[in-house]
C-alpha cells in the first residue's frame, strides 16, 4: 500500500475549487496553499487548449523535505503519507527550498511550515481527502500506487517537475486531444 494522487487533466478545468475546498476545511492561513493549480502550456497536446494541472504534496518515495529538515519534523508513514510535525518545526524553510513541487508553505501566523497531510484523519476514517471529495469534476483520485495500472497514466508532464527526482507519487492523465476546426 502506497498512497498517491491521480490528477486527471482530461477532467480538470483549472477552477481551483480543490485549492479553496482544502483551505477552508483545514482553516489555512493567507498565501498557504496545500494544493496548487498550474496553468500549463497551451500546446501540451499539440493543438492549443486550456490545460491545467492540480498538484499538492506528492508524498514522495524519497521526500526532499525530510532530507532537508534539520529538526526531523518530517516522517513517512507505512502507507507512504509524508507528515509534517509542527511542534518540532522551527520554520527555517529549508524544506520549502528543497521541495521541487513547492509543497511546503510557510504559515505567517505560527511561523512554521505547513504541508498537505493527505487529510490523514479523513483517510484513516475511510473517507476521501477533502480535495478529492470536493472537486466538482471528480478530477482527483486517491490511489494505491501499488495497485494502479501505470500504463493508464504518465508521471512526467511537460512544464512540471521531473517526478523521478524524488519518486513523486503523482500520476497524471493528460488532456485528450481535441479535433479542432479553427478559422
Amino acid at each position, binding site marked *: 500500500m502506497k498512497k498517491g494522487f491521480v490528477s486527471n487533466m*482530461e*477532467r480538470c*478545468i*483549472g*477552477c*481551483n*475549487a480543490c*485549492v*479553496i*475546498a482544502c*483551505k*477552508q*476545511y483545514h*482553516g489555512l492561513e*493567507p*498565501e498557504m*496553499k496545500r494544493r496548487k*493549480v498550474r496553468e500549463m502550456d*497551451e*500546446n501540451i497536446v499539440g493543438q*492549443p*487548449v*486550456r*490545460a*491545467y494541472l492540480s498538484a499538492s504534496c506528492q508524498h514522495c518515495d524519497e521526500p526532499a523535505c525530510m532530507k532537508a529538515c534539520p529538526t526531523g519534523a518530517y516522517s513517512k508513514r507505512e502507507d507512504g503519507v509524508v507528515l509534517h510535525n509542527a511542534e518540532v518545526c522551527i520554520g527555517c524553510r529549508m524544506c520549502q527550498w528543497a521541495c521541487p513541487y513547492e509543497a511546503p508553505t510557510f504559515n505567517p501566523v505560527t511561523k512554521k511550515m505547513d504541508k498537505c497531510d493527505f487529510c490523514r484523519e479523513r483517510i484513516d476514517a475511510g473517507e476521501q481527502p477533502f480535495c478529492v*471529495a*470536493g*472537486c*466538482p*469534476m*471528480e478530477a482527483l483520485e486517491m490511489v494505491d500506487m501499488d495497485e494502479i495500472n501505470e500504463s493508464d497514466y504518465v508521471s512526467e508532464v511537460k512544464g512540471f517537475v521531473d517526478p523521478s527526482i524524488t519518486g513523486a507519487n503523482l500520476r497524471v492523465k493528460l*488532456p*485528450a486531444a*481535441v*479535433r*479542432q*476546426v*479553427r*478559422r
Partner: protein
Amino acid sequence: MKKEHEITRRTFLKGSAAAGLLAGIGGATLSDFSKATARAEGETQEFFNACPRNCYDTCSIITTVQDGVIKHVRGNPNSTYTNGRLCVKGYNYPRRVYSPDRIKYPMRQSAKGSGQWEQITWDEAFTIIAEKILEIKNKYGNTLPICLNKYSGNFNVLTYGIEGMMSSIGHTTRCQGTPCWPAGIDSQNFDMGAILNADPESMLKSKMIIVWGANPAWCSVHSMHIIQKAKENGAKVVFIDPIMTASASKADQFIEIKSSTDGALALGMCRYILDHKLQDDAWMEENSIGHEEFVDYVKKNITVEWASEKTGVPVQVIENLAYEYATMEPASIWIGYGMQRHTNGGANVRCIDALAALCGNVGKMGAGANYAQLDSWLFNYAAMTGNGANTDNVEADRNININNFGADLLSLTDPPVEMLWVACRNPMGQDPETGVVRKAYESCDLVVTVDQFFNESCNMSDIVLPCCTIFETWGLHASYWHYWYHGNQPAIAQMYESKTDVEIAMGLSEKLNSLQAGSCTYPTDRTMEEWCAMEMTDGAKELFGFKDWKEIFEKGTAKVTGYEAAWSDGQFRTPSGKYEFYSEQAAAMGNHLLPVYREADETKTDEYNVRLITPHWKYGLHSQFQNLDWMQDIHNEPFVEIHPQMAKDRGIEDGDAVRVENEIGYLVVKAKLTQNVPRDEAVIYEAWYKDNPFNVNYVVKAIPADMGVFATGQPGVSFHDSFVSIKKA
C-alpha cells in the same frame, strides 16, 4: 523612579471626573457581556443552505458550524446534481460571511461619491426613506418618482419581498426586463411556447451533445461534469464557440465560429439534412406547424457553401456535423446565453431550435434544444405581496428598460425619478455605458442601496443598508436549469445589524404607517420563518410527498420530477399547441414569421474594428466573490486575451499594458497572449476587482438585442457586439 507593579492603582483608571462623565454614556462596564453559557467543546452542527446566486447550478450546501461560527461548507450529496461538491466560488463562502469589509450598519453619505459616511440607526434610516416617500406621494399624488432597480444578485424566493415592498407603497417605476437571456427566451416562447429544458442529468443518456455558445466549466461546473461523464461513456461532445474555452478544451470536437453567425450554421446544417432526407417528417407532421414553409425557405435560400462563408466553418465540417446530429440518437443541444448576446441573438436561437425540431429532437429523452426553464419555481411568491396602489392617481407601474437603465431614467420627466432603490444588483459595476448610469444616479435626490459589500453602486448612493448572507436566514431556492428544489435554514445569527430584504420591507412599512396611516400595506409582523413557510406551493408539497414544508430539511433538497425529457408529451404551450416554425407571435413582435437568418447589425467602424467579447469570469459571479481574500490569492488582476497574431501586428508582447478604447470610453489592461481566442477578436472577462477601478463596461455599449420584449417586456443586450481598438498603452 520605579513604577509600581500595581496597575489597579493607576489613578487615571477610576474615580476621576472624566470617568464619571463617560460612565454616563452607553451602558455600565460589562453591560455588553453576560454570564458564559455552558457549551460542549468542539460540538459541531450541520445546516442546509442553498447558494442563492444567479447560476445554473444553484447548489445545495451543507454548512458545518461550531460554537455559532461557520467552519466550512460542502456540497449536499442528496442532490444528484450538486453531487456533494461545490465550485471554487462556493467554497469561498466562509470568507464572505466573515470578511472585515462587510457592510455592517445602515450608513448615510454626506454627498454621493464623497466618501464621507455617517452611521445611522435603522430607525433613522427608515425615517429618512419614509419621509422621502411621503413627500413624493404628497407632491405628485403617486409614487412613480420612486424607481426600483433589482435583479438577480440573490435568488432566494424571499427577495421578491423587494418588489412586494414597492407594490405596497403604490405604483412605482420599475426596471423591467433582464440583461441575461431575454432574446433566447422570446425565441423559445415563439417556437415552443415556453422555455423548458430537459433535465441536464439526462445528458448522460445522450449519444451526442452540442454545447453551443456556453462555457459550463466556468458557469455550470456540475453540468460540465455530466458532459464529461457522457463523453467518457461514448457520447460525442461538440463545442461551438468563437473562443476555445476551458469547456471546449474537453470536447471531442471544437468548432470555432465567427461571432454572431450561429443561425447560419444551424440553417446550413438544415440544408444538408434536407438534401439527404435525414429530417424527421413524421415528427414534424404530428407536432409542428409551418414546417413546410420552413423547409421551403431553407431549400430556396440556404446552401452549405453560404453557411460556410458566413460562419468561417468549412463545408465538410458542416456536413459531417449535420449528418452526425441527425443520425446519432439521441442528440442534445445546449444553447448558451452568451450566444444570444448579439443583435441577432434571438433569430439565431430560433434557427437552432428549428434544427432540433427538423430532426424530431424535441421531446425525446437525451435530446432537446435546451436553454432554460422556470417550471421548477414552485413558489407562491407570498413575499411579493403588495397592494398600496388604491391611494394612487395612476393606473399602473411605469416600466423602463433595465438594459438601458441610465438613459431611460434620465429621459423620464412626467414625473421625473427622485428616489432610487437598488437591491440584488450593482448597476454602476455591471451595466454597459457606466458614464450614463452615473448621471442617472446623480439625478436622484435619494438613492438607497442594499448590499453586503461596498462597490461603485454603493459609492454613488445616499444610504447604504446592510443585508444578511444566505447563512443568516430562511429561504427556498430553485434553479433555471436543473430540477432540484432546495431549502435554506439559518446556520448562524444575523451579523452586525444586517437585515434580510423582507425585514427591511417590514421595517419600512411600519415606519411609513406610523407617519401616515395606511401609506404602506406590507405586513409588518411575520418572522422570516413564517414568510418562508408561505412560499412552498401545495403542488410542490404533493410532488415531494410533504405534509409540512419543513420536511425539505430532512435532505435539504427535493427533486421536481417529470422533466427528464422536456416536451415529451408534445403539449407545446404555443397558440396552436404545436411547435411553431411559423410563428405569428414572432411576426407580431416585428420578427420574421419563420426562423430565418438575420444578419447582425453592423457596429464595427474603421477605427474601432476589433470585436470585444466580455464573457463571465471563473473566479467571480459578476461583482461577487473576486473581492474575497482567498480568491485574490489565486488571481487578482484583470487582463485582455488577444491572439499572438493580433498582438504581433500591434507590437504587443505578453504582459504589456494595452489600451482598449472606443467612442464611449477606454481601459488599460494587461495583455495575455493566447491562441485560444479568435485572431480577430479580443476577450476581457467581466469582473470587479477589489480596490481596482477596472470595469469592462467603460467600453461596452447598451446595444439592444433583437428579441426579449415578448416574454420579458424589454429587449436584451448585445454585450458581445461592442467594437474597440487595441493598442499598446
